[in-house]
């Protein structure tokens, strides 16, 4: 068995409308990885996932799932793959339990076994109490869980999630993160696309960024973040100021009379900043990152591209 869960070679996609979505993507995801596939809207993420899942036909290139060429044996490759699409894709008028049992049946799991598996996965995702409700009555968060239950019913070795936490509240999002971490720890390779870069930073070990149908970055999360030259911080201070304090080598601006924006270079010490502020009689009551570190990096890369 290959050490790669997914290998994509020179993948191209041009839609009938002549829109070129993918210009020749090369990408490998190692078995057991938690991989982030990021990019702005229209970058080609969903086209890539669609091709892997056979929802979109490719124009050229190769896709291998655990060393199985999808051109040669797509049914076998599909058996190893679970996909959580961006949009809700179940019949809203069916019961939760029927949706998942039917999905199991489509994977060739006999009814008796599929009922057992359905019970297990629904309990695991907190959906068992809602099993006899029509899907349309579920909240947005529970609908997302149902999508994940469907994708996991045949116990895939590779799970692809296309923006799984879009529109989900913070509590549920955190619960989902824990669940995904758990199944990743149990050996499931996960590929995630998301617009919440904090999510990618928290969960993923490796990352690729697509823009305009091309791969602009493919590296480890650690490596990517280490390349960040500057970081922005927001400092809440005790007293009110008319103008920003001037400290040599630090760029400080006033957001409002009691809030400072500070830009700190990679080689600069935060302790030194605090010493200087104390010397000026300014007390800092709290401090936070101005924006997510990965977000800054992402914006920078997309701008460059």
């Amino acid at each position: 068995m290959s050490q790669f869960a997914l290998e994509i070679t020179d993948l191209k996609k041009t839609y009938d409308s002549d829109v070129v979505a993918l210009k020749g993507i090369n990408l490998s995801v190692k078995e057991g990885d938690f991989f982030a596939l990021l990019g702005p809207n229209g970058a080609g993420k969903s086209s890539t996932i669609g091709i892997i899942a056979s929802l979109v036909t490719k124009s050229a290139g190769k896709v291998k799932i655990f060393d199985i060429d999808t051109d040669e044996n797509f049914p076998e490759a599909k058996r190893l793959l679970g996909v959580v699409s961006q949009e809700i894709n179940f019949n809203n008028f069916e019961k939760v339990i029927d949706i998942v049992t039917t999905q199991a049946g489509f994977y060739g799991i006999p009814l008796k076994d599929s009922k057992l598996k359905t019970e297990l996965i629904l309990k695991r995702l907190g959906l068992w109490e809602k099993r006899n409700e029509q899907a349309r009555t579920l909240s947005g968060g529970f609908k997302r869980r149902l999508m994940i239950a469907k994708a996991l019913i045949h116990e895939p070795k590779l799970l692809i999630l296309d923006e799984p936490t879009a529109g989900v509240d913070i509590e549920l999002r955190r619960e989902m993160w824990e669940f995904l971490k758990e199944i990743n720890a149990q050996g499931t390779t996960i590929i995630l696309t998301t617009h919440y870069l904090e999510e990618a930073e928290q969960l993923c070990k490796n990352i690729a960024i697509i823009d305009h149908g091309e791969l602009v970055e493919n590296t480890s999360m650690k490596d990517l973040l280490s390349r960040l030259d500057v970081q922005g911080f927001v400092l809440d201070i005790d007293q009110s100021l008319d103008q920003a304090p001037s400290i040599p080598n630090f760029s400080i601006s006033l957001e409002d009379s009691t809030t400072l924006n500070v830009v700190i270079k990679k080689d600069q010490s935060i302790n030194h900043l605090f010493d200087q502020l104390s010397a000026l009689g300014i007390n800092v009551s709290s401090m936070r990152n101005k924006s997510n570190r990965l977000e800054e990096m992402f914006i920078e890369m997309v701008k460059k591209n």
Partner: protein
Amino acid sequence: MKRRNEILVSLITLIRKEIKRYLRIWVQTLVPPAVTMSLYFVIFGSLIGPRIGTMDGLDYIQFMIPGLIMMSVITNSYANVVSSFYSVKFQKSIEELLVSPMPNWAILVGFIMGGVSRGVLIGCIVFCVSLFFYPSFTIVNPLLTIIVLFLTAVLFSLMGFINAIFADSFDDISIIPTFVLTPLIYLGGVFYSINILPDIWRNISMANPMLYVVNTFREGMLGVSDVSIPFALAMIVFFIVMLTSACLFLLHRGVGTRQ
């Protein structure tokens, strides 16, 4: 062997899902044909029928029964597949099938069998209704009747499937049934024998494919027909083969299903 079993399970799952779908909404799917056909039997069979007299040597209501059964089978098998397959496209639940290892032929057979089962069930319901109005009805050739019933349901389910593949809106799934299927059925010998028409209209009627379906079924039920039975059966089978090939080709290319 394992792969074959998996395909069989997935096919049974899809057929079960399709049957459950129309049984769940039985008030919309099973009752209306029974009510509509009862009205046909009351008005054209019991009230107007005796004034018409006989058609091809048979009581008018007796002559009408196979035609009305066929009309119900055709419209319901077509409607079942076109609405079901378009709905899964519209709701994107077709992705549940496309991401699974089910082969295209199993997807096609699953939807067609859903349409066939509804068509045959409606045919049986209408036949039972007809017995209230003509209790002495006996089927002359049960084997031919069953074969034609099944083949007709398959044929029109396939047509419904192709309509759904190309449909982009709910309007698209009602245009063909309203403007093509219904006129052809009404002019296809459901209510009359083409022998009563002037030569020119009889010749034009011979180009209507519904005529062959209705008359072959009438031959099975009553032993009378306006067309050659071997020719009609051959044409039905020919069109089933052609449409099946077309459906598989369209699924393989991803027309209307994959981007």
